[in-house]
């Protein structure tokens, strides 16, 4: 795998981790409380963005960047990737028969979740590859880390 594909794969995995945490939490809460499909998707969407941004912002803040400066870098870098992931993820869950209505003790829920997250990775990878080529997306996060003199630490702790 060439360096840019590897960087895009790492960036996508990084995004997907945050998205998955929020998405799983949202769907677990929505399913456990018996919320409607629309409300559950909205909850999962919101939590995915929250976790996705948090996972990228915290390392930048730790590296010494101000909170709002870090947040603005992350907004620019991650928003599109998280959006694509969330659309794909929720669409796949909605399309799999019974996945949204399946209870937590129904295997369909867990299998659906695995398929949806895998599809989200596949959907977001080309976008991250394109953004890195253009010096945008996660390339912005890397640049911010380099400016903080923290690139090696970032590479070591975040899988980039």
């Amino acid at each position, binding site marked *: 795998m060439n360096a840019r594909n590897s960087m895009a794969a790492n960036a996508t995995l990084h995004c997907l*981790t945050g998205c998955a*945490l929020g998405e799983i939490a949202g769907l677990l809460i929505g399913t456990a409380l018996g919320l409607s499909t629309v409300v559950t998707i909205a909850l999962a969407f919101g939590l995915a963005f929250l976790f996705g941004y948090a*996972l990228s912002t915290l390392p930048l803040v730790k590296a010494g960047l101000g909170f709002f400066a870090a947040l603005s870098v992350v907004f620019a870098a991650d928003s599109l990737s998280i959006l694509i992931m969330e659309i794909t993820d929720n669409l796949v869950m909605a399309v799999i028969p019974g996945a949204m209505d399946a209870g*937590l*003790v129904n*295997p369909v*829920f867990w299998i659906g979740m695995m398929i949806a*997250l895998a599809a989200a990775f596949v959907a977001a990878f080309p976008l991250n590859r394109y953004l890195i080529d253009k010096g945008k997306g996660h390339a912005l996060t890397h640049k911010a880390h380099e400016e903080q003199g923290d690139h090696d630490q970032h590479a070591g702790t975040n*899988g980039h």
Partner: protein
Amino acid sequence: MNTNTLAAAIVGFLLGGLVVSVAAELEKDGSPPAHGMSDVTVTSVPVN
């Protein structure tokens, strides 16, 4: 905690959920054991 560890934890969580839900489904079905004779049904035949 680095991203790879978190990703591995998520995969483990999903697999764990799948295993538990499959076990719950099997329990709910009340399937008889695949071996042994613990569920032998005894019937009586009326004698004329």
